[in-house]
């Protein structure tokens, strides 16, 4: 069953078109969202997170139409979101911050303490749970962000650049967590790091200039790179550049 159905999605930021007629259907699994800077990845994630409103098109999440504001709360209840900059409260401990997000998500009060401990343990911060966030390293703060996103056991998880600031060991652990989360939920990961996509994602969507440039899985993207002589050091980088080139060539041809 599809978790997300997007048809004809348009997002404008003043005079700039961030997303232009995006059609997308995603189900359970880990979906990598790749694309150059300014391609529209964050705009797409923000619409799916119910934070930004589209200027056109239809977005259906977990069977609920996002244009109906009364249904948006139900979507948010089953949604986890880690923005690029999640802005924590410096005086809060890890436990307090994750508990606060759980309270905002209207988890039953009795269930919050256990949910917080479970989420914090999953990101490997159990021994730091009562430490103030401002004393943690950048990578640990990022893991606090991941913990708040999973505290409500969401059906849809949206991560925008989740591995920024994580060291290689932490990234390996995060990929394992992604794979685990993707068995029961729809996980969308916006990233520049193709290694993360190759290692953890079951599907890949490539966005360029506000449009979907490519959809497939890591293996097909790698195969495209090998057959089309894309450039890059990693097999997936070659697939990424080949897919981008093909999309831009066809878009330029259509414009003529």
């Amino acid at each position, binding site marked *: 069953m599809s978790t997300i159905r997007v048809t004809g999605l348009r997002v404008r930021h003043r005079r700039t078109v961030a997303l232009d007629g995006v059609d997308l259907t995603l189900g359970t699994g880990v979906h990598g969202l790749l694309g150059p800077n300014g391609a529209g990845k964050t705009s797409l994630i923000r619409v799916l997170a119910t934070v930004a409103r589209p200027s056109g098109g239809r977005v259906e999440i977990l069977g609920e139409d996002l244009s109906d504001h009364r249904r948006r709360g139900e979507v948010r209840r089953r949604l986890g979101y880690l923005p690029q900059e999640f*802005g924590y409260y410096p005086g809060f401990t890890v436990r307090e911050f994750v508990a606060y997000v759980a*309270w*905002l*998500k209207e988890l039953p009060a009795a269930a919050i303490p256990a949910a917080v401990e479970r989420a914090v343990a999953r990101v490997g911060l159990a021994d730091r749970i009562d430490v103030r966030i401002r004393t943690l390293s950048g990578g640990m703060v990022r893991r606090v962000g991941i913990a708040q996103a999973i505290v409500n056991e969401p059906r849809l998880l949206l991560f925008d650049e989740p591995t920024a600031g994580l060291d290689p060991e932490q990234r390996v652990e995060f990929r394992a967590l992604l794979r685990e989360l993707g068995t029961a939920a729809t996980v969308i990961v916006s990233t520049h790091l193709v290694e993360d996509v190759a290692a953890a994602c079951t599907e890949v969507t490539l966005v360029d200039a506000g449009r979907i440039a490519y959809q497939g899985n890591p293996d097909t993207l790698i195969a495209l790179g090998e057959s089309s002589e894309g450039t890059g050091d990693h097999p997936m980088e070659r697939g990424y550049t080949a897919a981008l080139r093909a999309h831009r060539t066809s878009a330029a041809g259509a414009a003529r």
Partner: protein
Amino acid sequence: MTGPLLYARSRALPVTLAALAGTAVFALWAAHRMEMYLDPDRRVPIVALAPLLAAAMIGASLRTPSDELDRTAVRPWWPLRLGQLAGLTALAAALMSPAVLGHPDVFGPPALIRNTLGCTGVTAAAAVLLGARLSWLPAFGYVSAVYLGSSGVRGRAATVWAWPMQPGAQPGAWAAALGAFVVGGALYVVLGARPEGPRG
């Protein structure tokens, strides 16, 4: 720790409460100090400036560092925002009123309460339009301009535009200050403070 307490800490309410108490003590000290020296009946500076300070502190508490996450909350924001704004305004007025006890029809507690409402309303509207960090600026500019420029001005219109400098019983000044509080407060309760930071 319960959710409402975490909300209060997320908005730095303990610091804000301490700052409001400090403002009240300062206003009380300044009021008595004035009586001792040159101008024993001159309460206008307290009535005009103490609410301005209190409104600036309330405005700072309207800031949230995690606006992006806040917008994915299931819990409705309006009761929290309304409680915060109305509670802090009432508390500020109650704490500062002892500084100007007596003379209720001139520059006593009613004028101070009116100005607290007006300044907080302007500050709340500014938090929505400019962000909480700069929310103190419009009220500061307006009240300062009125303070410096309204002496000797008479007429019905002046009781409205120069509301921070009017005696406590002026209906026009009350209408203007209450209007600012209702409009500014409603804007903040519905929309929240303007996001600051990368997406602000």
